[in-house]
């Protein structure tokens, strides 16, 4: 309260600053930080409400539908991306390790890179691009066309009906898709290192089996669950509050909400990847 009074006292009745113009940059930073903290708090409450609603009645079929949309329909693109990622990894690793006579470690390098890092991260980014943007746009349109208001007037909790199934479905789908990405990526490494470059297949699989332990797989899944929560929450939140954006209105607000959802999700995936990795190490 004291801080608020101090800041207000610097403005006259017209809302213009009376003195200390050198404080302007700090004011801007302060406002941005307050806005950011507000959003963070609101998003956390939003997530809490959505998770709480997960266990209510009549959620099962809606969650299954969302698993189909977020998970099943993303399989093709995830497989394609992870296949080529694995192939590139196999290619690079083979050429790099051959210089040290360690080409036998190609399999483990490819597998560990995919399981611990690239699998969860690439899967999360691809789902963000494919399903996250669609989620933000869909909810945003539902908001500006008053469909969410209509739910409230029908006494249906919009967070239960719209948001909760999406977040639950993401939490279920992300690890499963990550597992598929890991397997297809390892197979991609096999294609380039063994089938194209002539590495012994037994060496490739043996190295993969010996150096990859269960903890690596578990850590990869933990990451993918963290990414799922972040991506689903950010995309739903951006769409749900598209009408409250100050920079735009209507269809433009939905467009910007979708863009924000994708950008913020991608940044959060990479930042949280570092944080989670350092915590798990």
């Amino acid at each position, binding site marked *: 309260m004291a801080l608020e009074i101090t800041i207000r006292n610097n403005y006259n009745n017209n809302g213009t600053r009376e003195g200390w113009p050198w404080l302007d940059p700090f004011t801007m930073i302060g406002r941005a930080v307050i806005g950011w903290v507000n959003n963070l708090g609101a998003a956390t409450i939003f997530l809490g409400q959505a998770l709480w609603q997960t266990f209510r009645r*009549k959620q099962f079929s809606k969650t299954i539908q969302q698993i189909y949309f977020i998970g099943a329909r993303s399989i093709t693109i995830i497989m394609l991306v992870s296949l080529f990622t694995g192939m590139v990894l196999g290619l690079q690793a083979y050429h790099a390790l051959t210089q040290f006579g360690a080409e036998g470690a190609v399999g483990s390098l490819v597998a560990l890179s995919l399981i611990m890092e690239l699998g969860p991260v690439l899967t999360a980014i691809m789902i963000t691009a494919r399903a996250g943007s669609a989620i933000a746009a*869909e909810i945003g349109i*539902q908001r500006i*066309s*008053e*469909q969410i*208001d*209509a739910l*409230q*007037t*029908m*006494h*249906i909790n919009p967070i239960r*009906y719209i948001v909760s199934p999406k977040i639950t479905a993401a939490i279920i789908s992300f690890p499963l898709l990550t597992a598929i990405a890991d397997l297809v990526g390892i197979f991609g490494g096999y294609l380039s290192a063994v089938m194209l470059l002539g590495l012994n297949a037994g060496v490739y699989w043996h190295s993969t089996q010996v150096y990859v332990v269960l903890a690596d797989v578990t850590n990869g899944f933990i990451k993918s669950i963290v990414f799922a929560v972040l991506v689903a929450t950010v995309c739903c939140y951006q769409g749900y509050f598209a009408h409250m954006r100050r920079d735009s209105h209507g269809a433009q607000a939905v467009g910007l909400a979708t863009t924000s959802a994708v950008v913020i999700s991608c940044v959060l995936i990479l930042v949280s990847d570092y944080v989670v990795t350092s915590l798990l190490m």
Partner: protein
Amino acid sequence: MDAPLIEFQNVTKRFGDKTVLDRVNLQIYEGQVTTIIGLSGAGKSVILKHIIGLIQPDEGVILFRGRPISGTKKSVLDASLARISYMFQQNALFDSQTVYDNIALPLRETTNLKKTEIHRRVMARVKQTELTEAVDKYPSELSGGMQKRAALARALITDPQIVLFDEPTTGQDPVRKNAILSMIAQYQRKFNFTAILVSHEIPDVYFISNRILALYNKQIVFQGTPEELESFDHPFMDEVIGSLEALQKELTGLYSQRQFKILNHVQMKRRSQKDPYCLVVFGLQELHAIMSRVGYDTAQEVLSTMGLYIDKHFSAIGGFSTRRSTNEILTMVPYSTLAETEGIVSDFVRDFNAHMIPLIGEKACPSASGGSVDLVILAGIAEGQSQGDIDSVILLARSQQKEIGRLSCAAGE
């Protein structure tokens, strides 16, 4: 009068710097149809959104059955709000769900009814709102009118005690407007719910409303019956009612019923008790068929042209006309006996058939293909006395209607 069901006490609402409602006071009573009228953007929908709880007032109190909503326990408030339905101005239908799913949604999500019972109730509403053919379609595949009816069906599916209608007839053709207002009135009588409407349809809403609330300059300036509104002396009447009536005159070429009443009242004061007058009731049969053949805009144009022709013909002898319903025009012929009026009308019929029928034919027939349609123009005359009841004269004239003209559009023209 009973205690109000809903009451606003000095409710103020601002959006940013803009004040939309400024110390609004109003009362809404149970079991009545209450209509809020006012210009576009005046804040009528904001009042409805306050009632349903979508918007909270910045200042003031909203009372529900005498208790302030803000201080009510959440469980009690939820139970109260659960009995309210809201029909949105833009329908707010779920565009990724079929009409059936949209209507069934409140039952599926808020009740434990079995599938068969939900199906029975939904199909009953679908039938009542004439949506049988559209039941498996998505909202984007429907016309504006059908979307409106789907929204109406959804609003009524839970048998609510209070229904809020936000401009239920917006975007409807004149036929559907009347149909929707009739449907609201019929359901209101049948289920005895409290209806709160926001509407521009003056005077049509007067016929179904028990009370009118007039929103003007951010405040409720009038609360009372439609009859009381007629004698309300306020700038609102000139600015709002006048502009809406002017729009109706522009659409039909005729006076509004209120203006007709005023003109009749003025004439009546001038007339002595023995002076006769005659009423001519013109009717149009098969207007619906013409509408579906040439579209509502062209049909409206035909009607407007005809209205102007009637008005021009009868105003030359001091007569004046109004449109009583979609397909009925009423003309007052003052100081004329039945025999004199029959002579005037027969002149009119001759001119009408010579000039007007070919003109209407040009508009209504060649522009579209379709089955053959006959537009039949009827007229009935009845004589009344100055102090007599005008409604009984109208009924008599209607019963005397005979065909005075026919426009035949051949199939596939």
